[in-house]
């Protein structure tokens, strides 16, 4: 690990990226901070940032957290069996299977969410099928479950791809050797596949958890507007209430909150760095 760093003085490779970050992430952030730290009359205040502690906002934050954690967990639980199943396919088919996973994402997002609404609604396709099978219809529309389904649907590929990339890299010989030494399927998964896929898993968690904390379209359409996530409130402050200060303030506190949880993951990440290299 350290050898790699000392041999390659290659951090300069990131200079275009650093320039980009400064130009298009840091500077726009300053704009947002300026709004977040002032009240509509222009006076300095911390109240926009602390507004997240307002019971209404806090409740939305907790609900967003539940939905985001839930969606991330479901994505992880769905991804591992999927990746293992894909691993069983021969090499040519693996690439094909990957594209099959991405392909639906190329249909427009709003169209897909609207399609889900048609599937889940009271007289929708799912209940039609259930009725045909003689089963009780489900009342999923306009609930937290519907929002979760929408999120999992939308973000699943972002979890599968990095995990698959990590797992695909594992040498078949290692697994064979473990088998020869008497390791069962579960042990192989726990001792080899899981640890080796950690870097991919972490990327996946970031790419699923973070966007699902701020999304609002899925909850608006599939949640029937009865449930609000932090993303909905921020969106509303900007577009409906024209209160950019409060919107920015909430956004900044959400950002701090998410970055702290990311820093927590990062800590594990650093440990993961060691274990991933064995």
């Amino acid at each position, binding site marked *: 690990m350290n050898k790699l760093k000392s041999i390659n003085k290659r951090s300069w490779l990131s200079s275009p990226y650093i320039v980009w970050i400064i130009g298009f992430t840091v500077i726009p952030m300053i704009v947002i901070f300026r709004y977040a730290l002032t009240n509509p009359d222009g006076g300095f205040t911390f109240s926009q940032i602390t507004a997240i502690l307002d019971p209404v906002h806090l409740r939305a934050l907790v609900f967003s957290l539940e939905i985001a954690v839930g969606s991330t967990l479901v994505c992880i639980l769905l991804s591992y069996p999927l990746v293992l199943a894909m691993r069983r396919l021969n090499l040519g088919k693996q690439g094909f299977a990957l594209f099959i996973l991405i392909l639906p994402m190329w249909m427009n997002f709003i169209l897909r969410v609207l399609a889900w609404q048609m599937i889940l609604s009271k007289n929708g396709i799912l209940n039609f099928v259930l009725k045909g099978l003689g089963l009780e219809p489900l009342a999923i529309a306009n609930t937290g479950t519907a929002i979760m389904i929408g999120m999992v649907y939308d973000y699943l590929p972002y979890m599968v791809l990095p995990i698959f990339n990590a797992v695909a890299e594992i040498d078949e010989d290692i697994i064979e050797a473990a088998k020869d030494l008497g390791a069962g399927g579960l042990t192989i998964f726990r001792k080899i596949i899981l640890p080796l896929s950690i870097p991919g898993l972490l990327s996946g968690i970031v790419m699923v958890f973070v966007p699902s*904390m701020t999304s609002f379209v899925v909850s608006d359409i599939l949640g029937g507007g009865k449930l609000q996530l932090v993303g909905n409130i921020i969106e509303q402050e900007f577009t409906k209430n024209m209160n950019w200060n409060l919107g920015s303030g909430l956004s900044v506190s959400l950002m701090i909150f998410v970055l702290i949880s990311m820093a927590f993951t990062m800590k594990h990440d650093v440990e993961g760095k060691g274990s991933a290299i064995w």
Partner: protein
Amino acid sequence: MVERIKDWISRFYLGLIILFLYAPIAVLIVLSFNSSRSRVVWGGFTLNWYSRLFSNRQIGEALSTTLIVALLSALIATVIGVLGALGIHAMREKNYQLVMVFTNIPMVNADIVTGIALMLWFVHFIPLGFGSVLLAHITFNIPYVILSVMPKIRQMNVSLYEAARDLGAGPVYGFFKVLLPQLAGGIVSGFFMAFTMSMDDFVITYFTKGPGVNTLSTMIYGEIRKGIKPEMYALSTLIFAFVFVILLAANYLPQRKKKTVKERR
């Protein structure tokens, strides 16, 4: 026997996931043949929307803008992102963490916040239009590239690169012939994630675009109120069918060659 059951189970599971992923797509395809303008009423079978699609200039322009922006932004984001990831990985722990925090920021911000912030910033130096949309898309694409390349970099086998250098390969040659191929999986998936993000975005695009510039997403978003035009379903179906056919072709054509290689081995 056990292996065969396992194979069967894993195929069944794959099937379930595919059903989950393609159920809404199937709905969209069915809607493209619906003669009623409403998405919730079945008015009979028609191919009308397909013929109207081809005479609709606005949709054509939006499609070309969408594809060009998605391609360019994904390509540029991939180049900057891959180089960035390689560089960041070589940084000292502290800098590494700092840059990664900033990498996450475009994802942490709600789209509307990013969109408005970028608009207020762009106003100072670039007219809102195609260029500003492209810049914005590159900005929110890069994190996805970095996050999908990073795990690969961690797994990278550096001794291969060292060996190549020892055997006389220059740094550039070594980079393209030894380092890059090891990262290929991550680069490809990063590119596709970026491409997809770009195709789907509407909020950021809306705030950074100028008059006359439309992507399919902003167009569709504008149509929700009056009801999505069925031409859009037809277009989605065509794009889907088009890519799917290419995939099938690409999958089955080289497949045979591979088999023969295997047999020979």
